[in-house]
């Protein structure tokens, strides 16, 4: 520890900290622009100049390390003169038109110039103008004349997002922040540059000129679009969500927000919003009163339960429904007498269900990811599925952690990967078991017989430090998911590490806690669709986009006598449903998500439901009442939550432990195997309708990706349209080459209208010249 004095205040601080850090810790603010605690030190703005005893010149607080006995003066004459001088320089080429600037009211420069700027400008020369840039649909670089060249955006890209898309080109006064040859910024974290930009140079394109910051009300909320449980603020005006910003939470999202969480709100007011209950009569959709629709639904369910039997009713919900919604849904089903309820719609292997001890979860707190020394990530489109978790791992890798990958694609993770094994989906289990074998040999001094790749991964995992095996979405959706889990458990045990699942969606853990899974008599999501039911209750589900096998799902829906769709949107359900009940998305209702690390977080609605939409928990409650099921008298979502979690020790429930499972049963697939990702902006109903997100490169129409040797075999040129078929369905999409793919696979995204006519996300698939 080191003792220093700032403005007469004695401060004890750790060796190696900088003056600005010490000051901030002691609650003393020092003006700054380029400094940001999560970015490297640039010391280029010079705003933080302070006087240091015995130093002949003012020193930048952000870059000056503390030394024992140091005396710092942040507001002495010398310091203030230096700060004022810098402020004057910052303003000479800066447009002084705050009233029309989009950043007005939340501009660091504006705030500080009030304190440090002089009166009239002494600058009478011509001001520099910097051309506006188009860097994509999310971030506006319209007003680059306002840029103060702090390079926060550039450093963010290079250091946190992992790719240098922005740079500072040219030099001196001509220095300009831009992308290479007017390219777009494609990072899935790009929106953070908006927050980082201290001035109005980089602003939110969708939010531009929508409102002034002081006109906005703000409500704390939780991310609904991935499983991290990111803390965010929903900002509204006139009952409209106009902006979403991160709330700093070091244990979860630090100070970041993924573009998905930031811009998804643009899908909330889509023209496709369902705002009135509707029923289909004589093949025609009619808007009806709530009472009518609810009674229609209740009667329909009662009729089927009494006739064909309650087991002919199935309920499906997406994992981004709230805990309360999932809880009441299963309660309703069980009240009717059906055990068929599930929220794991993209899962295809449920054989772990009776072998699993508890609720699968991350296996460790998110914050612990930063402390890993070696990690094995199995079957994960990490960057796109979990952008901020990827960023956290990226930082860990920078500090020396080793990332090992086993997957069926080799997308650039923008971090150093120590070892990777890229194999076709049907070889995934074997690849993992090789690692287990190699670890066993390593640990027990046996001769190594495993592949060199597996041995390398095993070596990395047996480093003796903090080790984890993480199973991604792909591994969870894999037809041998249970075997992968068992192997991950074995590997974790052999390397004294932890293992867990990176949950797919906001409530991948919460769904289990809500019991939205079938009991011993019930059918899971896959069986419910494979053996069609007479009636379905859908919660937030778009059957052709949210399930493991769209073809089968749509067939099941079409053959059912009754489909009750609870949805925020009017969608494809109009072709198979009988009742559409408009429900509120997460910004319009209160609820709870349990994140992948098991953190239970409740939130309130930020705005009133649109039109006649109602929170789904209320809709389910009334349905319960209409069906005369007892226990449906909660009058707040909190009451539902408390009931759902009553007597539940969440931490004790979390467990990835799985009992012994035969891991040798590797099915040999013939022909081409399908590898499918759910693209980052296709994961749920809201993001699918966010226009700015849909305009990004990441939202491009899916293509059929093959190794170029496979393309050659098929006689197909890159860019040519091919016919991709599975089961009875086929789609025509463009062929693309990715030589990092293993042979024998074709990568075709799921969750997208362009590929919704296809079958299962895994399995054989054919590709032909169109």
């Amino acid at each position, binding site marked *: 520890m080191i003792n220093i004095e700032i403005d007469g205040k004695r401060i004890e601080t750790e060796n190696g900290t900088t003056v600005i850090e010490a000051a901030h810790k002691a609650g003393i603010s020092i003006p700054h622009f380029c400094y940001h605690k999560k970015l490297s030190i640039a010391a280029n703005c010079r705003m933080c100049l302070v006087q240091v005893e015995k130093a002949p010149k003012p020193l930048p607080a952000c870059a000056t390390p503390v030394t024992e006995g140091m005396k710092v003066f942040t507001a002495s004459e010398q310091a203030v003169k230096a700060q004022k001088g810098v402020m004057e320089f910052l303003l000479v080429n800066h447009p002084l038109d705050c009233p029309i600037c989009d950043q007005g009211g939340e501009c660091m420069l504006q705030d500080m110039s009030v304190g440090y700027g002089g009166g009239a400008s002494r600058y009478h020369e011509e001001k520099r103008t910097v051309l506006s840039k188009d860097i994509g649909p999310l971030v506006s670089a319209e007003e680059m004349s306002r840029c103060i060249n702090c390079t926060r955006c550039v450093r963010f890209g*290079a250091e946190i997002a992992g*790719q*240098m*898309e*922005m*740079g*500072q*080109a*040219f*030099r001196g006064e001509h220095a300009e922040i831009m*992308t*290479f*040859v007017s*390219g777009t910024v494609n990072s899935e974290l790009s929106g953070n540059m908006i927050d980082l930009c201290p001035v109005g140079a980089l602003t939110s394109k969708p939010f531009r000129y929508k409102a002034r910051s002081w006109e906005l009300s703000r409500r704390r909320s939780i991310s609904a679009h991935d499983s991290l449980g990111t803390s965010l603020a929903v900002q509204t005006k006139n009952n409209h969500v106009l902006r979403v910003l991160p709330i700093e939470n070091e244990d979860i999202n630090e100070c970041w927000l993924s573009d998905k969480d930031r811009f998804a709100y643009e899908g909330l007011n889509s023209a496709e919003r369902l705002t009135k209950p509707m029923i289909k009569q004589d093949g025609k959709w009619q808007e009806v009163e709530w009472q009518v629709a609810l009674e229609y639904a209740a009667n329909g369910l009662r009729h089927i339960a009494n006739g064909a039997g309650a087991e002919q009713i199935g309920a499906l919900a997406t994992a981004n429904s709230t805990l309360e919604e999932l809880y009441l849904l299963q309660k309703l089903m069980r009240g009717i007498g059906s055990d068929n309820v599930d929220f794991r719609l993209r899962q295809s292997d449920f054989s772990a269900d009776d072998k699993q001890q508890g609720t699968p979860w991350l296996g460790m707190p998110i914050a612990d990811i930063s402390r890993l020394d070696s990690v094995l990530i199995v079957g994960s489109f990490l960057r796109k599925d979990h952008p901020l978790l990827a960023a956290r791992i990226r930082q860990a890798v920078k500090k020396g952690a080793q990332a090992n990958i086993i997957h069926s694609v080799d997308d650039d993770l923008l971090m150093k990967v120590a070892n990777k094994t890229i194999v076709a989906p049907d070889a995934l289990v074997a690849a993992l078991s090789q690692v287990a074998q190699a670890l066993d040999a390593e640990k027990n001094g046996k001769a190594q017989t495993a592949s060199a790749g597996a041995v390398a991964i095993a070596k990395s995992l047996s480093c003796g430090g903090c080790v984890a095996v993480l199973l991604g979405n792909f591994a969870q959706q894999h037809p041998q998911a249970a075997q992968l889990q068992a192997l991950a458990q074995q590997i974790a045990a052999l390397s004294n590490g932890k293992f867990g699942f990176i949950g797919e969606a906001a409530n991948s853990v919460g769904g289990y806690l809500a019991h939205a899974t079938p009991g011993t008599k019930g059918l899971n999501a896959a069986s419910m669709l494979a053996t069609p039911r007479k009636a379905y209750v859908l919660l937030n589900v778009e059957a052709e986009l949210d399930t493991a096998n769209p073809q089968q799902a749509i067939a099941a829906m079409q053959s059912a006598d009754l489909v009750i769709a609870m949805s925020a949107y009017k969608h494809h359900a109009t072709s198979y449903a009988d009742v559409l009940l408009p429900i509120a998305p997460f910004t319009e209702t209160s609820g709870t998500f349990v994140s992948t690390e098991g953190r239970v977080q409740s939130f309130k609605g930020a705005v009133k439901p649109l039109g006649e939409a109602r929170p789904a928990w209320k809709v389910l409650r009334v349905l319960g009442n209409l069906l005369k099921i007892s226990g449906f008298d909660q009058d707040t979502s909190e009451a539902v939550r408390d009931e759902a979690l009553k007597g539940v020790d969440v931490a004790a429930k979390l467990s990835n432990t799985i009992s012994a499972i035969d891991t040798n049963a590797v099915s040999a697939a013939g022909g081409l195997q399908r590898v499918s990702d759910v693209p980052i902006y296709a994961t749920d109903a809201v993001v699918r309708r966010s226009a700015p997100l849909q305009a990004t490169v990441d939202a491009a129409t899916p293509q059929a990706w093959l190794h170029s040797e496979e393309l050659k075999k098929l006689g197909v040129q890159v860019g040519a349209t091919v016919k991709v078929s599975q089961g009875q369905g086929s789609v025509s999409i463009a062929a693309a080459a990715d030589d990092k793919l293993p042979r024998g696979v074709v990568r075709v995204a799921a969750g997208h209208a362009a590929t919704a006519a296809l079958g299962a996300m895994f399995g054989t698939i054919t590709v032909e010249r169109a």
Partner: protein
Amino acid sequence: MLSDQIQANIERELKKYPADQRQSAVMAALRFVQDEKGWIAPEDMADIAAYIGMPQMAVFEVATFYHMYKLKPMGEYTLTVCTNLSCQLSGVNETLLHLKNKLGIGLGEITADGKFGLREGECMGACVDAPMFTINNKKLCGRLTGEKIDQILAELSAGGQGGKQ
């Protein structure tokens, strides 16, 4: 695509630096492209980025930071004239005037036949030889007089190297 010659040259430069510091060769790589093509187009920068294994934007930053890189064609022979203080004191204004008259172009321009381009440069670190210019960044011609300039231009027009040291 970078020509075989450029690739060979880059390989030679890469040997100067530690194996994990390939980016160190980017300045030379840009120079090789410029020497071969006369200027550096964005596609060339992208090629260099791919070859060296660095972000395209980082190549662009370098190409735009150092002023001897030409981001547009500047004639078969680019004459860069130092106009800094020692050269100014030694009559570079007359030198420039002579060049402008002789070539019929101003600073930043190229002759109609594309043969000559004129650029202003900063201190070349050869002030005792003022006034001076460089030809294609390769050859520095100092102690210029009207006569000497005429001779150099004639030689270059005839396809020669242009002036002796």
